[in-house]
C-alpha cells in the first residue's frame, strides 16, 4: 500500500528525517510514536507531500509520488488527512465542510454529496450538527467533523497527525472511539500519536522514531512489553 525507501528530509543543514524505510500493508493500522521534535509528524506529512522529501522514494499503491509526473492532487484524494488543529473551514457549515471536496473534485451532485455527508456525520455521532458552524462545536466535535470530511473523499488511507493532542482530556475518548471504529472496518491508517493506550489497543504495528530515524518497530505487544533498544526503553519509561 505504502512503501517508503531511504526517505530523508532536511531543512537547510538540519536533517530531520534520516534514511527512513518502511512499508504499510493494506488495512494495517500503524501508530508512530516518539518525543516532540523527533520527526514523526514530518514523516507523516511527507507521505502526502505536504512536506517535500529531500531524497528517497515513496510509493503509494505502486505509484512513486516523488516522480514529477505523478498527479499529486489526484493522489491526495485517496489519502485522507486529519490535523492536530482540525483545520475546518470556519466560514462553512459542518455539512459544507464535508461536501465541498466531493462536489468540486468528484463532481458529485449536491444532493448525493449531502446524503453521503449525513451518513458520515451519523457515523461520527454528529447528525444533529450538520447546520452548525465549526466555531460552535467543541474541539472533539470539530475533530470528528474533520474525520468525516476526510472520509467523504473515500480515501484508501487515512493519515492522522496527533489528532487528539489539541483536545481537552475529556474529549479525547470520543475521537479515539471514531478512529477505533474506522480501524475495525479495515481502513488503512497511519497515526502519529501520544496516546499509548490507544496505540497498544488498536495498532497492528508501532513505530518508534527518534532523532529522525526509525529506532524500533514491531507489534504493540513486543514493543511496549519488551523494547530492545535503550532509547525506546527510556522513552517508554517516561510515557507509560
Amino acid at each position, binding site marked *: 500500500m505504502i512503501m517508503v525507501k531511504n526517505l530523508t528530509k532536511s531543512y537547510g543543514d538540519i536533517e530531520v528525517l534520516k534514511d527512513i524505510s518502511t512499508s504499510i500493508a493494506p488495512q494495517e493500522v500503524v501508530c508512530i510514536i516518539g518525543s516532540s521534535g523527533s520527526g514523526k509528524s514530518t514523516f507523516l506529512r511527507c507521505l*502526502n507531500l*505536504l512536506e517535500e522529501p529531500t531524497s528517497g522514494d515513496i510509493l503509494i499503491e505502486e505509484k512513486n509520488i516523488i516522480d514529477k509526473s505523478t498527479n499529486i*492532487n*489526484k*493522489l*491526495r*484524494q485517496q*489519502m*485522507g*488527512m486529519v*490535523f492536530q*488543529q482540525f*483545520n*475546518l*473551514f*470556519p*466560514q462553512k457549515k459542518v455539512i459544507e465542510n464535508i461536501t*465541498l*471536496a466531493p462536489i*468540486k*473534485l468528484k463532481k458529485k451532485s449536491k444532493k448525493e454529496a449531502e446524503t453521503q455527508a449525513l451518513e458520515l456525520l451519523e457515523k461520527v455521532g454528529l447528525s444533529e450538527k450538520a447546520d452548525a458552524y465549526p*466555531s460552535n462545536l467543541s474541539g472533539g466535535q470539530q475533530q470528528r467533523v*474533520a474525520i468525516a*470530511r*476526510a472520509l467523504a*473523499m473515500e480515501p484508501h488511507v487515512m493519515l492522522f497527525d496527533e489528532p487528539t493532542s489539541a483536545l481537552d482530556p475529556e474529549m479525547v475518548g470520543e475521537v479515539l472511539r471514531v478512529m477505533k471504529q474506522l480501524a475495525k472496518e479495515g481502513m488503512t491508517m497511519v497515526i502519529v500519536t501520544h496516546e499509548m493506550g490507544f496505540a497498544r489497543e488498536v495498532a497492528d504495528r508501532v513505530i518508534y522514531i527518534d532523532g529522525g530515524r526509525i529506532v524500533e518497530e514491531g507489534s504493540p505487544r513486543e514493543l511496549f512489553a519488551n523494547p530492545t533498544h535503550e532509547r525506546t526503553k527510556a522513552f517508554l519509561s517516561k510515557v507509560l
Partner: protein
Amino acid sequence: MGTTLDVIKDAFPYLLQGLYMTVLISVVSIIISLVIGLIACFMRMSKYTILRYPAAIYVNIIRGTPILIQILFIYFGAPSVLDIHLSAFTAGLIAISLNIGAYNTEIFRGGIESISKGQMEAGRSLGFTYSQTMAYIVLPQAVRRMIPSFVNQLTHAIKDTSMLSVIGIAELTMVGQSIYAMNFKSFEILTMVALMYFITIYTVSLISTRLERRFVIS
C-alpha cells in the same frame, strides 16, 4: 452678486456635477484597483522571482512617490515618450487605479497571510490544487477580514481624486475652483465643497460599518 443663499443655490448644480465625476472616478478606479491588487498580490507571493520583483517594484514606487507626481507623470510624462495620447479622464483613472492598486496589493497580501497555514494544508490534503484552495477556502475568509481596509481605500480614492484638478478634470474640487474664480466667494464655495466630500465619505464609512457587522466573523 446676491446673498449667501443665492451663491449656494447658483453653485449647487455645478458642484453636484463635479461630485458625480468624483464619485464616478473613485468607484471605477477602486474596482480596477482591486483587480490590480489581486494580481500583484499573487505575483508578490509567487515563488518565481520574475513575477515577484516587478510587483515589489511597482508597490514600492507607488508608495514612495507623491500621488500628484504620479498623476502628472501619467498625463504629461509618459505620453510624451511613448507617443500616445491619453484623455485627462483616462489618465486620471489610470493614476488613481495604479495608486490605490499598490496599497490593495499589500492589503490582499496581509489578508491572505493572516489566514492560518492549516487552511491551505487542509484544502491541499483533500486534493484541491493551490488555486482551488485559494479560491474556495482561503480568499473567502481573507476578503472578509479585508473589508474594512478596502472601504478605507475607497475613502482615500475619493479624496485623492481632488488632485485630478491639476490635469483639468471637472471633478468636485476643480468645479469649486472655477466657481470662486468667477464670483470670488471662496469661503462659501470651499465650505460647500468640503461639506460635499465629508457627506460622501461619511456615508461610505456608515455603509462599511454595516457591512462589517454583517460579514466579519471573529
